[in-house]
C-alpha cells in the first residue's frame, strides 16, 4: 500500500473530473468523521488497485502486512497493465453523490443496461441539460437508484434529433458486474 505518485494522481483525477467536474474538490477535501482524530480522505494504491479511504483507516491498515491486506476503504478503480486507470463499479456511489451529468432510464430499459448494454435513445427517460459528448455520465433508474456509469456519446442537444436506436451513453460499468464478474472484482 502506498500513496499515488504524480503520474498516477493525474490519471485518477482526470478520470474522476470527467464525471464530477468541479465537484472533485469535494471528493478530495471531504472531512472524515471516523476515528479518534478525523482529518480527511486520501487515495492509496495497493496491488494495482486504487482505494479511497479515510486517513485514520489508512493508519490502522499499516499494521497489516502487504500480502495479507486484501482491501481498505472504498476501491474506486484499477490501473491496468498498460498503465491506464479504469474506474470500477465500486466507485459508483462516490460518483453519484458528486456527479454533474446524470441520465435516468425508463423502467423497462433498466435490465438491458444491467446486462452490460449501452444506453440508446429509446431507453432514455430524462437527461441533464448541458451534457456534452465525452463527459462521464451516471445512469440512474427513475427512482433515483444508481445503476452504473458510462461516457456520453452525444450532447443533450444532439439527443433531441437523434433517432431512437442511436447510442446516447457508452457503457462502462454497471451493477450487474457484481454478478457477472464476481471473481474479478
Amino acid at each position, binding site marked *: 500500500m502506498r500513496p499515488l505518485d504524480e503520474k498516477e494522481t493525474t490519471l485518477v483525477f482526470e478520470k474522476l473530473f470527467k464525471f464530477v467536474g468541479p465537484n472533485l474538490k469535494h471528493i478530495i477535501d471531504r472531512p472524515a468523521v471516523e476515528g479518534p482524530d478525523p482529518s480527511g480522505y486520501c487515495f492509496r494504491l495497493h496491488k494495482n488497485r486504487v482505494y479511497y479511504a479515510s486517513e485514520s483507516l489508512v493508519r490502522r491498515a499499516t499494521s497489516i502486512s502487504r500480502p495479507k491486506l486484501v482491501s481498505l476503504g472504498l476501491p474506486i478503480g484499477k490501473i491496468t497493465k498498460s498503465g491506464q486507470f479504469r474506474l470500477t463499479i465500486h466507485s459508483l*456511489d462516490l460518483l453519484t*453523490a458528486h456527479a454533474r451529468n*446524470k441520465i*435516468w432510464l425508463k423502467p423497462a430499459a433498466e435490465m438491458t443496461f444491467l446486462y452490460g448494454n449501452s444506453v440508446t435513445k429509446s431507453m432514455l427517460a430524462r*437527461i*441533464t441539460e448541458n451534457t456534452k459528448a465525452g463527459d462521464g455520465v451516471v445512469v440512474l433508474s*427513475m427512482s433515483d437508484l444508481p445503476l452504473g456509469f458510462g461516457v456520453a456519446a452525444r450532447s*443533450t442537444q444532439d*439527443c*433531441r434529433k437523434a433517432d431512437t436506436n442511436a447510442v446516447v451513453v457508452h457503457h462502462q460499468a454497471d451493477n450487474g458486474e457484481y454478478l457477472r464478474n464476481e471473481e474479478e472484482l
Partner: protein
Amino acid sequence: MGKRKNVILPPALPPETPDEEFQISDEDMEFFSENPKFTNFLTRIDKKQIDRHVTRVANKSEDEVERLYERKNRNAAPLDSLENDLHVDPVDALPIKTLDGKLQYRTNKKVSTREGKADTESAEEDDDSKSGTIRLTKAERRVKLKKERKETKKLNKDEDIAPDSPKEKIQSEVLKEVEEEISAEESFGMKKIKLAEIGTALLEDPEANIRSLRDLLQICEDRDPEVIKLGLMSMLAVFKDIIPSYRIRELTEKELAMQVSEAVRKTRYYEYTLLRSYKAYLQKLVALQKKPVFKQVAVRCMCTLLEVAPHFNFCETVLAGTIRNISSSDDVIRKLCCEAIKSLFKNEGKHGGEGTVRAVRLIAQLVKSRDCHLHPDSIYVFLSLRFDEDLGKPENKTEEKNKFKKNKKGNKQEDPMKQLLPSERKKSRQELIAKAREEVYADYRAVSFAPDSKERQRMQSDTLSAVFETYFRILKHAVDSSDPRSDTEMSRSHAHPLLAPCLDGLGKFSHLIDLDFMADLMSCLKQLSGFSSGTYLQTKTSDSSRSNNGLTVSERLQCCIVAFKIMKSNLDALNVDLQDFFVQLYNLLLEYRPHRDKGEVLAEALKTMLWDGRQHDMQRAAAFIKRLATFSLSFGTAEAMSALATLKQLLHKNTKCRSLLENDAGGGSISGFIVKYQPEVTDPYLSGALASVLWELSLLSKHYDPGVSQMVSNILSMANLKPTQNTVNPSLVALNPIQAFWESTIDKELSKPMNTKVPPSLKRKRKREGREYFVLDPEKMRNVENEVIGEEEVNVRFEEHFKVLRDISENERLKGELNRTLASINFFDEFKREREKEKSVGLKSGKKKAKVLVKCSSS
C-alpha cells in the same frame, strides 16, 4: 415657377373668413414672445410684396394712410426721413416702414406687372384643384404666405387698414377696432361654430360636400393653437366616419382614358378628393408632431386613425408616426401609442395581418437603432400578438370533411346513377352548376379582402421572426452589458428596462421557438440568471457579489421561469433536467427580500420549477425542502404559504424525503456522503439536507396565522403515513404556490376573519355582544392607506397625540409628587408623634432620674 415670381394674391381674403378672425389675440402675442423661433418667418418675408400690398391700399384711401403714416413716423428720426426723401419715387410719396425700421418705396414698375401676374395666379389656382399633390403643397405654401403677410401687418400695428374696408369712415373704423379687440373670444367661438358646421355638413352628405375638407384643412392652418387643435380633432372625427372600408386604388392610365358614366366619375372624384385631403392631413399631422404644443393632439389623431383605418391608404405613414412615439417619455402619448398598436394587433381582421408585420418590423428596427434603450411598454405590446397555431389546418380539415361528404354523396349517388344511366343531361347540368360555382368562388377569392391561409402563414412567420429577433437582441444586449468585468455601477442600476417584458414575451411564445435556437437561448438565460459560466462554479458563486450580474432577484427568477417554460413546451422531444437552473433557484431563495423583490415572481418560480416538476433527485428535493422550510420561517405569511405549498408537494412526491420529518438527525444510509447538513452550501446536491431534521415545521405549527399552522400540521401528519400511502388531503395538495401566495397576501388576510369557523357557543356570545367584533373591509383599509392626508392634518393629529402623551406623563409626575409629599407629611406626623412620645418618655425618665438622684442624694 419660383417663389419670387409667384405673386401673392393681394388682400382679397377668402370670402368665408371674416376679417376679424385674423386679429391678433393676446394668446398669440404671448405665444410669440415665448417661442421666438416662430418669428423666423418675419425675417423671411418678401418685404417688397408686403409693401406693394400696403401701398395699394394707400392708393385707395389717402387720408387714412396719411394718418397712419404720420403716426408711424412720429417716432422715427427726422434724419432718417431726410435721407429717405432723396430716394422717393415720384409715383407715390408715402414710404412704408418695415419691421427693421427701414423705409421702403414702391416703384412704378412693379405695379404694372402685378395685375398680369395675378391673372396667371388665379388660373393656376383653377389648375390646382385638378392636379395632384405637388400642387397641393404649393397651395398650402400660398396659404401660409398669406397668413404671414397678415401677421406682419398686425405686428406693424396697422389693424385699421383692413383691406376690405378701405372706404369706411374713420369713426366707424375705430369702433370696429375696439369691437375686434373685444371679439377675440367671439371669433374663436365663431370658428368653432364654423368647424362644427362644416363637420356636420360633411357627415350628412360626404359625397356632395367632400370639397369642404379643404376648408377644414385651411382652418387647421390657423394661427391660434387652440383652433388648430380643434380643427385637427374635427377632421379626425370626419375622417373616422367617412373613410371607406376598402383601400382606394390608384387609377391606371387605361381606366382614366375610358369613358365612364356620371356616377362612376362622381365616385372617382369623391375618392380622389378624399384621398388627397387625407394625405394632406397626414402630412400636417407629421409636421405638427414635431412641435411640442401640438404633439399630443397630433399623436392622438394618429393613434385613432390607426385604430379606425389600418386598412386604408397611407397606413404606413400613420404607423411610422405612431411607432416613433411608442417609447416617448410622455406617459399620455406613450400610452396612446401602445394602445393603438395593441388594438392593431388584436384586430387583425381589419387589415389582414399586413399592419401587424409592418408594426413589428418597425418596432424591431427601433429597438435596434436605440440599442435597447426604450420604455418597457413598447415591448409589452408584443404580448397582445396572437399567433394562430393551426393555421391552414382547419381548412384542410374542412376540405377533408368535404371530400368525405362528397364521397359519401358520390356513393349514394352512384347507386341511383347506375339505375338511371341514361340521364346524361342531368349529369351535364350538374357539371355546369359546379363549374359556375367554382368560378364564382374564384372571383370571390380574388375580390375578398382576406388573404388565403398560405399568405397568412407567411405573414405570421414574418411577424414571429421579427418578434424573436427583437427578443434575442434584447437578451444579447443584456448579456453583453452585464458582463461582470465591466463594472460600471451607473449603467447597472437600470440598464435593462426591456428585459422584463422580453422575458414575459418569451414565456408566452415559448412554444413557437425554433429548436435550433434553443441551445443559444438557454445559455443566454443561464448567464442572465446568474450562473457564472465556466467550471469553477463553487468558487465563483460563493462570493455572491460576483455572481450577481446587475440584475435584480426577480429578473433572475424570471429567467429561470422562462427557461423552464421553454423546456416544458418543447418537452415532447426530450425530457431534460435543468440542473443549473435549480442551483440558481436554490441560491436565489437566500437572496430574496420580501419588499424589494416581487413575491408573485417567486411564487411562480416555485410553481413552475418545483411544484410542477415531475421528477426530482432525492438529494435535491431534500435540499429544497430544508431550504424552503427555513425560508418560510423567516418571511411573511404569503411567502411562507407558497413555500409550504411547494414543500408539501415535494414531500408528497418524494416519499423517501419524508425521513426528514423523523425526529432523529442523520439520515442514515440514504443521506449519502455528506454526513452533516451544511446550510450555506450553494449546491443543493452537497448540502446534505437528508441528514437534517425539519425542526422548522414544529415552530411553524405555532405560527400566528391559522392558515400556515394548519398547513404545517397537515405536513407533519405525513410522517405517520406509510411510504406508499400518498393521499393526504387532496384539497390542500391541489393548492399551488401561486394560489397560496395570493390567498394569503394582505388584502385577503383582512377579509379572512369572516370565514373562520367560530364554535357555536362563541358564536352565540358574539351575537349578543353585537358589533364589538366588526371586520374591517379590505377596500376601506386600502382607501385609508391610499388617502393622502394633508400635512396640516398630520400635524394636528400628532399634536393631539403628543398632548395626550404629555398629559399622561405630567399626570404621572404630579401623582408621584403628591405621593411623595403625602409620604413626607405622614413621615413628619409620625416623627412628631414619635418625638412627643419620646419627650413624654424623656420627661418621665428625667423625672425618674431626678427622683433617683434625689433618692441617692437623700440616701
